[in-house]
């Protein structure tokens, strides 16, 4: 009767955890699974319990001390050396009955689990894969069987067929217990249907059966196992229940039958409590073994369910400048010194932001650019203190001075008062960042209530005002996010960020979900608002051309480090770092002369194993031997910063090859 987290998948609007599953299964799940089970305590407990019952199933004769059915002892004995669990009213040894009874429950569990899973896979995958009318029909059948009270139905069936044996029981339970698994498998198949690898198989002209057997099923290992385990628990419990009420073979050797006889002889009241307790404990333990495995399996296949913390912060080069008591500059909104952020991963800690310094003046527009995976978003989320559970990122060093206080050491309670009033955040996709079940008005009201004593009327008025600021008709104020268009949602989120006209607005790729035209008009509007209201902006983007006309300064990040930091115009006109140059060459200029566009060969390094020396050196067109060996320092050139040995005079002098050029 356990309900696994698969309910998440069953409910259409629910958050899916299956992306992970798919990703993992595509890379040899089997081997990982064994390792993962060995590491998971719940899974190990389940495996041990199950192994114990399997041994009892296979060798009852060798293990049981007596013949389970022989009424040869004194009835109603309590526990003793001879009879560990006492004897029944019929003078049988309870322990021996218990051991012999294991077999039937285990057989039922595996047989029903197997049968139900087979049907579930057949129905669920076919429904999801075929779609259309077949899906409609199969789903209807699945739902009907799921909803019809199975236990009463089984009772009705067995009531007519009193002498139902093991086979009947297995067939009936299997034929009725598959629907939950089928529902989940269908949902998963549906979500897989449009995936690239299936498209590819279809284009290759593979047969349907091939696609289902070799492309779809392997990705669903975890769901299939969950379906099996769920059906097994169900079978153990229901079979015991049926036997308990006397709807089984009264001469069968099973835990349920023991309970039936114990209840009929009022064992609990008559001084033979173990007669009734022990078989129940066994049913519960066998059920728990499957339930534990199911639960653990959920954790293994859905990494989000595992709690991760840094065991030990990784060593980051200590910074002399960091936290050195440098007085806060009143002209600066933000001063970041030596900020480092690490993530946990299976391979240990990964430093995603490494010793970053940055300054932001009042009303200044700073763009942070770089390829995906360079640590841009991590940097700004660290500044906004939005890392930490459930996200695995943690600030492991440095200082974030915002309006004179260090955000790193600020307690969450104090931080709350700074949030939204003094700095706000605009996220990449408003579709995901706006709460789907609250209206825009309610979400604005939440923010207002948290930070002010505004009356409901004032809040309504202010909300309309900020919507007008971003050119949204205030009639949309009481709409739900899904009722707005993509561009409007994005604007509504920006409007929300301006409720208190903060000093700093952090924007994480706020336009990347929009088309080019909408992108441009939104950028113009952001810039216009920024100049009018005077807030500073940290703007994250991977699209350099987007910010060339809007930002005052540009921070180019590569592999978690600052590659170049300086005036936007200067960086665009005379980029210094080879990476910046490569980035610029990868984007077309709108008005400039026609040039050949160059991509950057290779991809950013895996931060778990960064290259030695300069992190860009493996992809750098002008790399020298020293670049591969010694990490370059961040050097100041005409009040801008660049991390490249070409601008480091001291390093160049030590390296004669570089000095020559």
């Amino acid at each position: 009767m356990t309900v696994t987290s698969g309910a998440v998948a069953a409910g259409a609007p629910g958050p899916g955890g299956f992306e992970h599953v798919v990703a993992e299964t595509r890379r040899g799940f089997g081997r990982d699974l064994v390792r993962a089970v060995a590491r998971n305590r719940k899974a190990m407990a389940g495996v041990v319990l199950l192994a114990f019952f399997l041994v009892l199933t296979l060798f009852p004769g060798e293990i049981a001390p007596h013949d389970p059915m022989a009424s040869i002892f004194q009835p109603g004995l309590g526990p003793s050396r001879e009879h560990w669990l006492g004897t029944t009213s019929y003078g049988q040894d309870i322990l021996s009955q218990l051991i012999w009874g294991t077999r039937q429950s285990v057989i039922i569990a595996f047989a029903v689990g197997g049968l139900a899973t087979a049907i579930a896979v057949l129905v669920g995958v076919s429904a999801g894969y075929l779609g259309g009318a077949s899906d409609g029909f199969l789903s209807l059948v699945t739902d009907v069987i799921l909803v019809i009270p199975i236990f009463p139905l089984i009772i009705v069936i067995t009531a007519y067929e009193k002498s139902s044996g093991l086979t009947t029981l297995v067939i009936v339970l299997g034929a009725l217990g598959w629907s939950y698994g089928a529902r989940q498998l269908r949902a998963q198949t549906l979500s897989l249907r449009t995936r690239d690898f299936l498209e590819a198989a279809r284009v290759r002209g593979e047969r349907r059966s091939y696609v289902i057997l070799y492309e779809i099923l392997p990705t669903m290992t975890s769901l299939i196992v969950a379906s099996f385990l769920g059906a097994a628990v169900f079978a153990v419990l229901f079979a015991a229940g049926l036997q308990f009420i006397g709807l089984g073979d009264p001469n069968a050797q099973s835990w349920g039958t023991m309970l039936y006889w114990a209840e009929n002889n009022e064992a609990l009241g008559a001084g033979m409590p173990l007669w009734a307790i022990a078989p129940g404990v066994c049913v519960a333990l066998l059920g728990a073994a499957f339930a534990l495995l199911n639960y653990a399996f959920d954790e293994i296949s859905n990494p989000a369910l595992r709690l991760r913390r840094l065991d030990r912060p990784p060593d980051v080069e200590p910074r002399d400048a960091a936290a050195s008591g440098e007085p806060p500059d009143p002209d600066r909104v933000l001063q970041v010194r030596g900020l480092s952020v690490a993530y946990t991963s299976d391979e240990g800690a990964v430093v995603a932001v490494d010793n970053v310094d940055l300054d932001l003046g009042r009303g200044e527009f700073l763009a942070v650019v770089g390829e995906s995976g360079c640590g841009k978003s991590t940097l700004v989320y660290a500044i906004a203190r939005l890392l930490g559970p459930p996200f695995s990122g943690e600030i492991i060093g440095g200082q974030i001075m915002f309006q004179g206080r260090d955000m790193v050491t600020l307690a969450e309670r104090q931080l709350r008062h700074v949030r939204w009033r003094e700095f706000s955040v605009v996220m990449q996709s408003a579709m995901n960042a706006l709460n789907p079940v609250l209206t825009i008005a309610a979400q604005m009201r939440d923010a207002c209530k948290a930070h002010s004593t505004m009356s409901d009327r004032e809040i309504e008025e202010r909300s309309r005002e900020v919507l007008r600021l971003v050119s949204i008709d205030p009639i949309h104020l009481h709409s739900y996010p899904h009722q707005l268009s993509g561009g409007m949602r994005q604007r509504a989120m920006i409007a929300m960020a301006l409720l208190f006209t903060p000093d700093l607005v952090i924007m994480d790729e706020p336009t990347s979900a929009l088309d080019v035209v909408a992108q441009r008009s939104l950028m113009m509007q952001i810039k216009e608002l920024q100049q009018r209201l005077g807030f500073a902006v940290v703007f994250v983007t991977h699209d350099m051309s987007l910010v060339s006309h809007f930002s005052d300064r540009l921070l180019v990040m590569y592999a978690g480090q600052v590659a170049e930091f300086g005036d936007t115009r200067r960086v665009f006109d005379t980029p210094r770092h080879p990476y910046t140059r490569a980035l610029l060459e990868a984007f077309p200029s709108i008005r400039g002369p026609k040039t050949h566009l160059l991509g950057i060969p290779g991809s950013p390094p895996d931060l778990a194993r960064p290259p030695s020396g300069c992190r860009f050196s493996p992809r750098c067109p002008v790399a020298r031997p020293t670049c591969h060996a010694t990490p370059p320092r961040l050097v100041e050139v005409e009040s801008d910063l660049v991390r490249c040995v070409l601008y480091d005079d001291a390093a160049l002098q030590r390296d004669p090859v570089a000095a020559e050029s």
Partner: protein
Amino acid sequence: MRFVVRRLGFFLATLWAAVTLNFVIPRLMPGNAAIAMMARYKGRINPEAMHALEIAFGVNNHQSFLAAYFTYLGNIARGRFGTSLTFFPDAVTHEVLQALPWTLGLVGLTTILAFVVGTFIGLVSAWRRGGMLDGVLPPIFVITSAFPYFWLALLAIWLFSIELGWLPANGGYGIKTEEAWSWTFAGDVLEHSILPAVTILVTAIGGWILTMRNNTISVLAEDYVRMARAKGLKPWRIMWTYAGRNAILPNLTGFAMSLGFVVSGAILVEFVFNYPGVGWMFLQSVENQDYALMQGLFLLITVAVLLAILAADVATVILDPRTRDRS
């Protein structure tokens, strides 16, 4: 609109399936059980009622399968479920209506309570991930959710009634108490309901805790929860209106879908406690081979589950604005 039509179709299909199963099962079972039962009715009920029973169970009847089926459907549609043997000469409907309030009170309330409390514990334990509550409750409830309901009921009776003598072991109210609208009676009913209610609660709650915990953990990684943090909302508010409101939606579907299971467990609890509800009556009818009553109760349980699903649907529409636009 399409959503409503589809849902309606689903309800009708389920009802039809339940009725048809009732009709088909006795015909598939090659036993003499039904004939033996019919013999006990002989001479006790009027020919018309007898004929209805013959059609229902496929005994002595010369109609074709299809003709019998449609006559049967007609009888069911008019609410003619036959005459109960156990409570002769009362009609099945009459008996069922007697038992219904007891089950609604016990199983209905405890099921809802288990869902509400379990969902809340699941939410909090996911919110305080790795905390005290999270470390203790979910693992315990993984195990209790594998307990057979009836066995826990046996243990509860043994411990609290036989050994300690704190609470009554069976019945819906005391033998000496008069069935009337009085405080004494109400108190007596309450006292008798504690053990069965706790039994159902303890076994049913685990599933809800685990699903809600897992849903919440997934939801906590969503952008809108991060956004709520960025807005500087109070933690309680984030947990409730941002994480909880969204995490409960798939749980509601799950609730509706697993009611069949919950009811099954509850039937056995009523049986063990001799609680005068539908479940107990159902098992009595099986024991007495009172198939008319049994089939009537099976239909009733199906309808009850469908009504609960309807309630869950309504709750989903209220809680999730997206479904409103879909329907």
